[in-house]
């Protein structure tokens, strides 16, 4: 039976099952705009649900995209009742952990306590490569735990505005890596348990083992959720150029090797020059010709994917109004002849 695949994200936007949506791709292709657009459309289509947009990119852009400041604590977007944003700040998160450690264990005069008091640990570990991915992952685990325990704000769907490809893949590897490491630590603790008990006291050792087992259980849960296509999906964002196409293909193959569902591709910054007789310079024509060449290949390679073709707008897509206007094309698809004027209306709005 032949199925036609719609060239929009209508199914995803109206999905009632998805809990985790990753939006990723190469740098500078429009990931943030796409993730913001997806979040806005989902929040608009499903007003009874709560959505959270998290930026895992160390170079956060969500605040710039919406034109308002977001921090490490989720905050509702101004003008949206069911969409919140969060930018994970590694140094702030580490400082919080540092302060918590001081409150629990540190004492003035003690070497470790002094180190913690000064926040030196947070300063040092904040620059560790991979710390952003690790902290983002911890946020994910926190949300799962909160949902199970019914604490705090409950979000039905979390959308991730991810960092450029390499960082994202590292993030996605974390469940598997942590699972292996925790298993190894468990083996080590099992071998040296009696000796550790004699040094640390039995109760403390049990506490550590208990926490490790809890962490391991959470990590396993996340692994299961990330590989369930009804719960998690990855939306690839690209532009119609050679390197972007190549990296998108590699990204999709990597994600498939992780058993992560990928079924949607957003192709950004398309000129549609032949449908725009008014603004059709030679450069645009030439560029559009190049884009069409790769678009044809995209259509051929990804015939079983939802390929959404989005236009290059005349101005920046910033602020909630512009984002709402732009994001509608994700739901309905962009028809150059009909919707062409909108991309110039975006320019006029400040």
């Amino acid at each position: 039976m032949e199925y036609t695949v719609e060239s929009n994200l209508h199914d995803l936007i109206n999905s009632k099952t998805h809990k985790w949506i990753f939006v990723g791709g190469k740098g500078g292709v429009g990931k943030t705009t796409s993730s913001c657009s997806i979040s806005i459309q989902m929040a608009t289509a499903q007003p009874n649900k709560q959505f959270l947009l998290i930026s895992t990119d160390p170079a956060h852009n969500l605040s710039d995209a919406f034109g308002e400041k977001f921090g490490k604590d989720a905050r509702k977007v101004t003008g949206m009742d069911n969409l919140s944003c969060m930018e994970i700040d590694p140094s702030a998160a580490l400082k919080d952990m540092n302060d918590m450690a001081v409150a629990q264990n540190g004492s003035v005069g003690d070497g470790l306590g002094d180190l913690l008091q000064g926040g030196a640990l947070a300063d040092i570990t904040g620059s560790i490569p991979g710390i952003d991915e690790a902290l983002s992952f911890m946020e994910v685990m926190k949300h799962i735990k909160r949902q199970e325990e019914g604490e705090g704000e409950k979000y039905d769907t979390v959308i991730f505005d991810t960092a450029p490809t390499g960082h994202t893949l590292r993030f996605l590897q974390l469940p598997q890596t942590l699972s292996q490491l925790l298993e190894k630590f468990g083996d080590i603790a099992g071998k040296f348990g009696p000796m550790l008990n004699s040094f640390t006291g039995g109760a403390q050792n049990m506490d550590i083992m208990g926490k490790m087992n809890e962490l391991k259980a959470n990590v396993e849960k996340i692994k299961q959720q990330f590989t369930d296509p009804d719960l998690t999906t990855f939306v690839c964002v690209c532009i119609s150029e050679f390197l972007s196409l190549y990296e998108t293909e590699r990204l999709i193959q990597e994600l498939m090797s992780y058993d992560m569902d990928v079924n949607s591709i957003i192709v950004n910054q398309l000129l549609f020059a032949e449908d725009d007789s008014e603004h059709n310079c030679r450069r645009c024509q030439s560029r559009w010709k190049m884009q069409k060449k790769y678009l044809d290949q995209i259509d051929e390679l990804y015939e079983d994917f939802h390929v959404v073709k989005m236009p290059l707008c005349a101005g920046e897509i910033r602020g909630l109004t512009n984002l709402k206007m732009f994001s509608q094309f994700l739901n309905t698809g962009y028809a150059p002849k009909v919707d062409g004027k909108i991309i110039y209306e975006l320019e006029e709005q400040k």
Partner: protein
Amino acid sequence: MSETSEAEKRRILRERRQQKFGNGGGSSRLAKITGQTDNSFLSTDSPLDSNSSSPGPVAQKDNQESTKEMDELLARLAQNESKHVKDVGPKSSAKSPELDLFAQLVKMQGGDASTQGATPETPDLFAELMKSMQADSQQGAQPDFPFGTCQPPIDAAVLAAHNASVNKLKAYTIIVKWVFFILPYIYYTTHAARKTFESSDMEAVTSKFSFFTIFTTFEIVTLSVYYQLLLSAEKSHHINTLNSNSKILSLVSMIPPGLVPIKNLPGKTSQALQYWDVLSMYLTDLAFTILLIGLFQYYWST
């Protein structure tokens, strides 16, 4: 369209996608993309092809290669280099991105910053840990245990039997030494050759054929024989006596590599303890010999 048919449609599309990417499809797709550009240096090795046999989610080490390779390639393209992209070389578990977080903690513990905490003398703790994880996945591989020498668990009864045989060997060595040589020699020296022994203050020590020279020579020979017999007993029982019994060695083995700037600390400690074991036997014999010489001399003089 009903929910069931929507779900069915999604499932069918998913299977179609997986089918197209599987069975070498990944590489051919990449080749199709790179083939449209002349002189493309981009790799067409697919992560899916290297992972086609493993079911379920597995974070492949190749992922790091492909990601790192892409980043390097893009950096070179930005600088308009025309060199061929080479493989980045054998993967070092110390450079594993997932371990960057932990490797930096090792750096905090005093390793060389330029090598991210790993030097030839102080191997990366978490590289050792990853090695042990990798070794575990290979059949029959002996894990390179990061916390010291790793012996397979020894049966308590076998260990007790081995310790008993070692103690018996030690006892027999002492008895043979003392009964058949040391005691008679002390008697001879302090009685029959008393005048020679007492004639000079230092002759008993400095003379080529003095008492202590002969005594030390004898001790060296007997202790060497004892040590060889001990080694053969350990070999036959497949037990290292020191590793199994020494509390000092077990504590030293707990110290992770890299924490102390001494290469192979457990090995060196084991060696030192072995030397001490032998030396202590000599010193014990020497002490008792001096005591007996004093007693015999006192007895003969009264």
